[in-house]
C-alpha cells in the first residue's frame, strides 16, 4: 500500500525526468487494461518502469511480457479486439518486426496506442535516434504523432488515447520521440494529477468486442476483391477525419494544461521568409538558432510537423505561403535519390501554390549523428542564398532546389 501511495500524484508537479520516464508515467496514469511489450533499446526504460508499476500493485494492468515485438503487437491486437484498452511500446528494429501486424491493427480499426522511441534501423546495427523506423511504417494506416521533448512525449501519449478511441477515428496511434535525445535526456516535465489524466482519457467503452460472447463477431475475415478496397477506403477516410479530432483534442488539452497542440507548430512564422520544416527534437535546437538569427535581422522561421499522419498538407500550405525559401529536414532517407519522405510530401503539399517558395531538402542525423546549431544556421545561410538567386531566376532555382538533397553533417569522403 505504501508503494502505491508513493506513486500517486494528487497535485500537479514539475519533475525532472527523461522522456522514457515521462512516457511510463503517462502510461501509469492512463492505466490501460493490457500492456504487452518486449524490451529494446532505447524503449527499455518505458517497459521496465511499467513492469515495476505492475509489480508494486500501482496499476491493475495485465502485463504480458512477450517473447518478441511481433508477439507484442499481435497480443495487443488480440487484447484490443477483445475489448481492452491496450498498449505496447517499441523502437527501431522492434517496430520493423511488427511491420506486418501494424497493417492488421489499422485494418481492424483497433484504437491501440504505441509509444515509439525512434531508433535507426540496421544494418549496420545502431541503437541511436533517427526516424527511419517510423518513416518505414508511415503507410500502415496509423496516426503518427512526434514529440519535440519529454513534456510533449508525455502530453502526446495522453492525447493519443482520446484520438485513437474517438468514435469517428478508431485508428491506432504511434507516438514518436527521438531515441536517447528525448528518451534519455533529463528535462523538467509538468506531470498532471492522476485524476486529471483519468478524467481526460475517460473510460474505454468499445462498441463491439470479442469478449461480448452473447454477441459473437468474427474479427479479421478474409476480404477479397469485392470488399477489401472499401475497408481500406474507410480507413483512409478515418485517418483524414482524424486531423480535426487531433486538433480538437489538442485544444481541449490546452485548456486543461495551457499547452495547446495542433498538427503543426509554427515558430516565429508571422513574417518569416526563410523557413525550416522539421520533425522532433531538432525543432528545439532550431528555435534557439532562429532567436539568434532574428537578433541579427534574419527573417527565419520554423514549422514543426507534430503530426505526420494524417499529413498536414493544408497547414503547411497556409504556413509556407508567404515564405521565400524552405528547407525540409529529414532524419530518414527514402533512398529515392530525392532525400526523405517529409521533403517529398512537403513539396507535394505546396504544389500549384501561386508564388510557392523555393523548397529544398536535407537529410541529417542518421544513426543519432548530432545536429548542431551551426549546422542549422548553415541551412538558413543556404536558404538566404537560394532566396536571393530566386529573385532573378525563380523557375530555374526552384527546379534545382526541388530536385537536390544535401546531407548535413556527414563526411562525404
Amino acid at each position, binding site marked *: 500500500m505504501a508503494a502505491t501511495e508513493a506513486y500517486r500524484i494528487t497535485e500537479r508537479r514539475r519533475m525532472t525526468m527523461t522522456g522514457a520516464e515521462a512516457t511510463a508515467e503517462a502510461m501509469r496514469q492512463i492505466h490501460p*487494461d*493490457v500492456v*504487452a511489450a518486449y524490451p529494446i533499446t532505447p524503449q527499455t526504460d518505458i517497459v521496465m518502469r511499467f513492469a515495476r508499476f505492475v509489480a508494486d500493485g500501482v496499476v*491493475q*494492468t*495485465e502485463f*504480458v*511480457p*512477450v*517473447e*518478441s515485438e*511481433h*508477439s*507484442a503487437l*499481435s*497480443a*495487443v*491486437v*488480440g*487484447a*484490443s*479486439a*477483445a*475489448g*481492452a484498452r*491496450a498498449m505496447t511500446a517499441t523502437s527501431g528494429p522492434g517496430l520493423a518486426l511488427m511491420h*506486418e*501486424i501494424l497493417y*492488421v491493427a489499422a485494418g481492424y480499426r483497433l484504437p491501440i496506442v504505441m509509444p515509439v522511441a525512434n531508433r535507426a534501423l540496421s544494418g549496420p546495427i545502431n541503437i541511436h535516434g533517427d526516424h527511419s523506423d517510423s518513416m518505414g511504417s508511415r503507410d500502415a494506416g496509423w496516426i503518427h504523432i512526434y514529440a519535440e521533448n519529454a513534456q510533449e512525449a508525455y502530453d502526446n501519449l495522453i492525447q493519443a488515447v482520446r484520438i485513437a478511441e474517438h468514435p469517428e477515428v478508431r485508428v491506432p496511434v504511434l507516438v514518436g520521440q527521438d531515441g536517447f535525445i528525448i528518451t534519455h535526456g533529463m528535462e523538467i516535465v509538468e506531470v498532471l494529477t492522476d485524476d486529471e489524466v483519468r478524467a481526460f482519457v475517460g473510460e474505454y467503452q468499445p462498441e463491439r468486442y*470479442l*469478449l*461480448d*460472447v452473447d454477441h*459473437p*463477431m*468474427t*474479427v*479479421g*475475415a*478474409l*476480404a*477479397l476483391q469485392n*470488399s477489401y478496397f472499401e475497408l481500406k477506403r474507410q480507413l483512409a477516410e478515418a485517418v483524414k477525419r482524424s486531423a480535426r479530432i487531433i486538433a480538437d483534442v489538442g485544444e481541449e488539452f490546452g485548456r486543461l494544461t495551457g499547452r495547446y497542440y495542433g498538427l503543426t507548430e509554427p515558430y516565429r512564422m508571422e513574417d518569416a521568409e526563410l523557413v525550416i520544416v522539421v520533425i522532433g527534437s531538432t525543432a528545439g535546437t532550431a528555435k534557439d538558432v532562429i532567436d539568434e538569427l532574428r537578433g541579427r535581422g534574419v527573417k527565419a522561421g520554423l514549422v514543426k510537423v507534430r503530426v505526420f499522419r494524417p499529413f498536414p498538407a493544408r497547414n503547411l500550405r497556409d504556413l509556407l505561403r508567404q515564405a521565400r525559401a524552405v528547407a525540409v529536414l529529414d532524419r530518414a532517407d527514402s533512398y529515392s535519390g530525392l532525400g526523405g519522405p517529409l521533403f517529398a510530401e512537403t513539396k507535394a503539399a505546396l504544389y500549384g501554390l501561386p508564388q510557392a517558395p523555393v523548397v529544398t531538402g536535407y537529410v541529417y542525423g542518421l544513426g543519432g549523428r548530432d545536429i548542431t546549431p551551426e549546422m542549422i544556421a548553415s541551412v538558413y545561410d543556404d536558404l538566404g542564398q537560394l532566396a536571393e538567386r530566386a529573385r532573378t531566376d525563380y523557375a530555374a532555382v526552384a527546379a534545382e532546389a526541388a530536385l537536390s538533397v544535401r546531407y548535413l553533417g556527414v563526411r562525404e569522403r
Partner: protein
Amino acid sequence: MPTLKELARRPNPLTGGHSACAGCGFPQAVRLVLMSIEEPVVVAGATGCMEVTTTTYPNTAWTVPFIHNAFENAGATISGVEAAYRALRRRGKIDREIRFVAFGGDGGTYDIGLQSLSGAMERGHRFLYVCYDNQAYMNTGIQRSSATPYGASTTTSPAGEAVPGKIQRRKDLTAIMAAHGIPYVAQSTIAHWQDLTRKVKRAMEVDGPAFINVLAPCRLGWGTDPAMTIRVAELAAETCAWPLYEVDHGQWRVTYVPKQKLPVEEYLRPQERFRHVFQDKSGQLLAAIQRDVDEQWEALLAKAGQSVDGKAAARA
C-alpha cells in the same frame, strides 16, 4: 463424458456453408473440440485453410467469437485475448467464465508460428491450442512443412528419380510442447471422437496452457478418397504412425494401444502422396518408413512406461 448424440445436439460453433473441400478434416477437429467445451469460448485462428474457408467476408461460419490476426501469431493473439479477459474480470467488467481456444494448421503451428506459440505457453496463459495437423502447407498448395512425414511427396518435396519425397523426419511438436512443462499436452485424431472430447475436457480442467495435436487428413494433399478421411485418420492410429497419447502434468500415457498394430503400409497405401513408396521395387523406402514408425512408437511406450498390451510395464 457426453455421448455422440448429446454432442451432436450442442450448438454448432461452425455452421455449414463454409467452403472447405468435401472430405476435409479440419471442420471435424473444430466441431469436436468446441462442442466438448461447456463454457462460452473465444476462438483465435491462424491464417490457413480453416480461416480462409470459414470467414469469407461478409460471411462467417463461426457462431462463436472468432479472431484471425495473421499466419504466425495465433499463440500471441489468443494470449492477448486471455490477458484482456483477466484484466476486465479484475476490473469487474466481465463476470462470467469464458474459455479460450486457438486453432492453427501445422504450418502456422510447427513452423512459422512456433515462436509465438512457445512464448504463449511459457507465459502460462489459460488457453487450449489445437493444431489441426494435415502434415503440409495445404492452403498454398501442398508444400512440405516440418510436420510432413518421411517419404511423403509434396509440391516442394516431390518424389522424383533422384529424391524419394521428403527425406527428413517429422518434427515431434507434441513432445516439444510437453517439454514446455505445461499442464496438459495430447495427441489425437479427428476419427477418435471419444478420445478427443475426453482430452479437450481435461484440457479445460487444468489451470494453465494446454496443447492438443489433432491429425486432420487433407484429402487433396494426401490424395485420398473424400469418403476415406476418417478411415485414414483411424489407420494412422491403428498403425501407430500417429499414436494417441497425453502428457498430463508430466505423466506420459498412451491412450490407445491397438490390439494388433497394423503394418504402416495399410495407412500409406490409400494415399497418393506415398504412391512412389509402392513403386519402389526394392521395398527399401517402405521398410525405412516402417522402421521409423516402430522406433518412435517404442520410444513413446518406453516414455509412458507402457508395454504393447497397453499395461504398465514393470518398473525396476
